[in-house]
């Protein structure tokens, strides 16, 4: 087996996945970013600034919480990595703080981002406010309608939300619009991507900024349980909380790694976001990875109750980890995630994000079948943002129609 955590190679490939499939206009910008990031990594002041932001602006280290009542239900000790306790409510802030410091260091005056549910947008707006940079967030018109609260939070923190009106008007299209914006304003603008996706060096850089999750969890597990977990579980949208958790454990071959995708209404319904489970390799948003696509190579619409998992692509390093077999990718449906959302709230007094509820849902399916060894689960975010949707879904009929059909 190759040394899995030494990747990517110099051109940004994880095996056959990754790379930099972008229009020529973005080449100089990516080269500039790659050089700036490489330089920042070597600079102890950057490291100090980043660490300081992680401790004082968001509350790192986040706790590792032994969830006793959940453990009793599962039949194995469950350790929750509490990324939901981060400022702005999810792991996303780890990455936005890192990239925002880099943007400032590079002398960029304007930062743009894409957002689905608005979690990454809110984290970006917060980090931009903290560093005094101008921030504009592309968000699908459909998502703006569904996530009013996050739109207001972003605006309150001084960001401008730009509606993406193309295609399905969701995350995929917000990403297209952000890339188009970047192409047109590449000289003064920094594109702050929210997950381990996009062209090189983004998948690596975002993973590095998020890898604090796994480094902390590994140490905490040794301290709390006296050993490494037998299983480490995370939900996978673009894959940043999962990569952040997995990265430190990749050399620990005895730790089984599980990524949980959104199975939406069911894997056999065509309405899901299970990119690694059912997609095929292809190129979207600058990288070669797994994609939901039709026979003609047109990108298909993803479907999930969780806006943060509702994306037809996935980070290239996950595609690689799937092919090497180091990580197993599973899925959980909307209904299973809703039940997990309720159960964690009742058992532990913690309302999880719908995204994180997918990871929990998979674990709940293993109840009674696991050996009595510690299990680590990344609770990537808190669920306050999902309450409206939860209430809507648990009434007899959702009052909202199906999300606009693609094409």
């Amino acid at each position, binding site marked *: 087996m190759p040394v899995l955590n030494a990747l990517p190679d110099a051109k940004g490939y994880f095996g056959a996945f990754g790379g930099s499939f972008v229009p020529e206009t973005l*080449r100089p910008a990516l080269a500039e970013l790659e050089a700036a990031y490489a330089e920042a990594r070597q600079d102890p002041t950057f490291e100090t600034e980043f660490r300081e932001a992680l401790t004082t602006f968001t509350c790192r280290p986040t706790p590792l919480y032994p969830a006793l009542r959940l453990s009793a239900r599962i039949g194995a000790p469950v350790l929750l990595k509490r990324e939901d306790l981060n400022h702005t409510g999810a792991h996303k802030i780890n990455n936005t703080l890192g990239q925002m410091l880099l943007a400032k260091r590079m002398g960029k005056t304007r930062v743009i981002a894409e957002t689905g549910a608005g979690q990454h947008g809110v984290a970006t707006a917060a980090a931009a406010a903290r560093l005094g940079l101008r921030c504009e967030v592309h968000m699908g018109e459909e998502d703006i309608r569904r996530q009013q609260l996050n739109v207001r939070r972003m605006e309150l923190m001084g960001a401008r939300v730009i509606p993406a009106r*193309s295609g399905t008007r969701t995350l995929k299209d917000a990403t297209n619009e952000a*890339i*188009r914006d970047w*192409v047109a304003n*590449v000289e003064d603008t920094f594109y702050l991507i929210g997950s381990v996706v996009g062209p090189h060096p983004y998948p690596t850089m975002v993973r590095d900024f998020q890898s604090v999750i796994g480094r902390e969890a590994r140490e905490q597990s040794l301290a709390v349980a006296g050993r490494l977990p037998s299983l480490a579980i995370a939900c996978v949208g673009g894959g940043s909380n999962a990569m952040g958790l997995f990265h430190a454990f990749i050399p620990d071959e005895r730790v089984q790694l599980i990524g949980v995708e959104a199975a939406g209404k069911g894997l056999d319904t065509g309405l899901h976001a299970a990119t690694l489970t059912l997609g095929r*390799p292809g190129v979207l948003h600058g990288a070669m990875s797994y994609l939901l696509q039709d026979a003609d190579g047109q990108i298909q619409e993803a479907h999930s109750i969780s806006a943060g998992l509702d994306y037809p692509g996935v980070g290239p390093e996950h595609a690689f980890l799937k092919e090497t077999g180091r990580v197993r990718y599973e899925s959980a449906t909307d209904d299973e995630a809703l039940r997990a959302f309720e159960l964690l709230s009742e058992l532990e007094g913690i309302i999880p994000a719908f995204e994180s509820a997918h990871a929990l849902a998979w674990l709940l399916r293993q109840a009674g079948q696991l050996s009595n060894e510690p299990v680590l689960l990344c609770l990537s975010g808190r669920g306050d943002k999902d309450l409206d949707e939860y209430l809507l879904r648990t009434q007899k009929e959702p009052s909202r129609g199906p999300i606009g059909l693609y094409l």
Partner: protein
Amino acid sequence: MDLSAFISERVVSGQKLLAPYLCAGFPNPEATLAILEALADAGADLIELGVPFSDPLADGPVLQAASIRALRAGMNLETTLEIAGQFQERRPTVPLVLMGYVNPILAMGRERFASKASAAGIAGLLIPDLPPECEGLLQAPGLPPLIPFAAPNTPIPRLEALGERGAPFLYAVSVLGVTGTRDALSKNVPVFLARAKQHSGLPVLAGFGVSRPEQVPELASVCDGVILGSALAKALEAADPAKLPGAAEAFLRPFRKALDAMGAPCC
């Protein structure tokens, strides 16, 4: 057709090239072949035939809409290549360059694509999201030559490197931004075109943003021709659906006239 020879012949004789872009299937699949013929008859030297894609991230609103409309009408890469083959039989002297994003090509499979494209007589490929470094991904027997892009921010060493690889021409993206018409082109455009030509040593065609015949002389005087995309799509959108070929012809002729009026440079 050997596109390099075709283009350099014109460049040497001082004739400026006119290269309209048409998204296959726009405004409807039935009209594509007839519009291509009309463009050829109105003086197109070569035509860029677009393959519609769900996520055309280098395109502005006009060509995005064209792409979506063509997809809704059922257009795909397979049918685009069939139409290309039919056109080449009817107008064998007007080369077709296929322009599209890489994923539909990968989905067809590189061997199948290369053999179908060469059978259809495709003379070159323009793939905005496939940098020359990644060409290996498509290499297969019969693959038409890939045409590189350059943008105003492309560094000079990069222009030189693109030139050294050799290609039928260089597609100069005149503006930082996506496709779409622009009322006024920046003063820097001619400077960029001249730089691209000088340092790549390749024939240069200017695209992105050209919309009116009056813009043509200034651009074409420092390069080898112009590419028209969004402006043609707008004209077709506005046209009577029963008279699309006529509309295409009426759109293109003034550009041909503007280019021809420039005359051959004095030797």
